């Protein structure tokens, strides 16, 4: 180690502070789910779980949740198919414009959300498409593809090609090789990619407002309530459940692959 003692201590303290900065707001908002008052002040003087039951039975919230779940499943399935197909092709063959394609895939998340949202909105209006669950799914699938694509291609790059060659040498046809060799090697990458794509779709709000029409997804329901400051105790409960609900899939995804997500690190 070349860094001086002072530098090392300084870096350690900085790291600790940044981690606290990243997590304290989340911890604080979790506490509010148990706030007995309807006002959102600090400190919380009275604790309760009384908001959980009315929240879970709120018809509007349930419809929004159901729409979000359906849209996230639809977007994830489409992204799985498109993303892995693209990863196979790009991994296996070198051709003109290969880098261009990965660039195009990342555009929906690299470009500001309102651009993707506004673009899809004008596109649907131009073709007189009615807004509904399918327009939401199309929007979400578009920015989820890159996650599956990145996950699968990173896994394919780390898998030696000799495995596939061996399978072919031993007389397996293309389908058998895919079924018994390729699929098992990429399966965890697919699962973790799917979990992350699902989480991303479930949470998305900017593109969604431009493609949802009059329907509410759960994030739009939350946003609407926060903006005008109504039903905040219910919002707090939903927020708490969402946080708990996302920790699980993300941790699983992280365990399955180290290459997850939009930002992969090469190891």
């Amino acid at each position: 180690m070349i860094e001086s003692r002072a530098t090392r201590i300084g870096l350690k303290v900085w790291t600790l502070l940044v981690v606290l900065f990243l997590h304290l707001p989340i911890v604080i908002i979790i506490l509010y789910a148990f706030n007995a008052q309807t006002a959102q002040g600090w400190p919380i003087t009275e604790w309760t779980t009384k908001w959980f039951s009315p929240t879970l039975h709120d018809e509007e919230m349930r419809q929004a949740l159901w729409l979000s779940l359906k849209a996230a499943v639809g977007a994830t399935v489409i992204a799985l198919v498109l993303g892995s197909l693209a990863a196979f092709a790009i991994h296996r063959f070198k051709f003109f414009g290969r880098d261009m394609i990965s660039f195009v895939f990342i555009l929906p998340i690299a470009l500001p959300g309102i651009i993707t949202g506004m673009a899809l909105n004008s596109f649907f209006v131009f073709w007189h498409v009615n807004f509904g669950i399918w327009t939401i799914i199309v929007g979400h699938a578009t920015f989820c593809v890159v996650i599956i694509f990145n996950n699968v291609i990173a896994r394919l790059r780390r898998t030696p090609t000799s495995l596939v060659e061996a399978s072919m040498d031993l007389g397996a046809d293309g389908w058998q090789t895919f079924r018994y060799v390729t699929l098992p090697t990429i399966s965890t990458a697919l699962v973790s990619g799917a979990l992350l794509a699902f989480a991303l779709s479930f949470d998305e709000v900017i593109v969604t407002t431009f493609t949802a029409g009059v329907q509410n997804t759960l994030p739009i329901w939350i946003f609407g309530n926060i903006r005008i400051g109504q039903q905040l105790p219910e919002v707090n409960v939903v927020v708490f459940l969402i946080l708990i609900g996302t920790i699980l899939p993300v941790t699983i995804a992280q365990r399955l692959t180290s290459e997850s997500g939009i930002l992969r690190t090469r190891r």
Partner: protein
Amino acid sequence: MRAFFELLPPLAWFFLLYLAALAVLFVSAFWSVDPFTTEVVHTWNTENFREIVTSPDWRRVVYRTVGIAAAVTITDAILAFPIAYYMARLASPRMRTLLFVLVLLPLWSSYLVRVYAWKVILAQNGILNWSLEKIGLPAANIGYTNTAMWLVFSYIWLPFMILPVYASLERIPDSYIEASHDLGGRGFRTLRSVILPLALPGIVAGSIFTFSLTLGDYITPTLVGGASSSFIGNIVYNTGLGAAGNLPFAAAFASIPLLVMAIYLLLARRLGAFEAL
């Protein structure tokens, strides 16, 4: 041949849908709305752009958006570099994995929830003012200001900066740093002449996200920004979807971040940021 069939569906999706949609957006920016019928008129004119460029109000919105996006990017780079350095070069493997998860978890927890958390924290009777009062300081009252937006954006996008910077630092071989020391480069000199230039692609890669995501947001300005703190996104949202709908004008306004990002991405490519993504 097989690659062609594999590529066809994803490419069709992106070209016929996404890129076509971007094209429609860009073209419709040159259309206008008939003031009497509120129908979109498909005649080519640059009126929308002229209005944006000449109106001081619209210009202020653009400056505010780009200015805060730049400030957020710089803040995140400063916050991220030391922790990324610690993760890449000093932390034990177990510690590194732990930090990795600790940085990733907020990134994947709901964006809206995190903005909401800050709205509650920064409120007049929120925890920030309460804590300041407890230690005898005056209340900050930064809720609903540009400062609040800067703080919240920096918070929200910070993981997007830490991860690529970490990746680029991790790839610097120890021998480079040792060589610099052997040649007499003291700590700061090594940092400036060896580490920073090699970390630059990672910082630029992170900045694509921090800059672009701030540029295209309207949720944070709506929830924690003040009365006159509209972003480009708010204008696009209000004119594109609002009651007084003017889709062509919204499209014209949305092409500003598109243009800014196109230039930014080209520059980033020059600096090798795409290798670091």
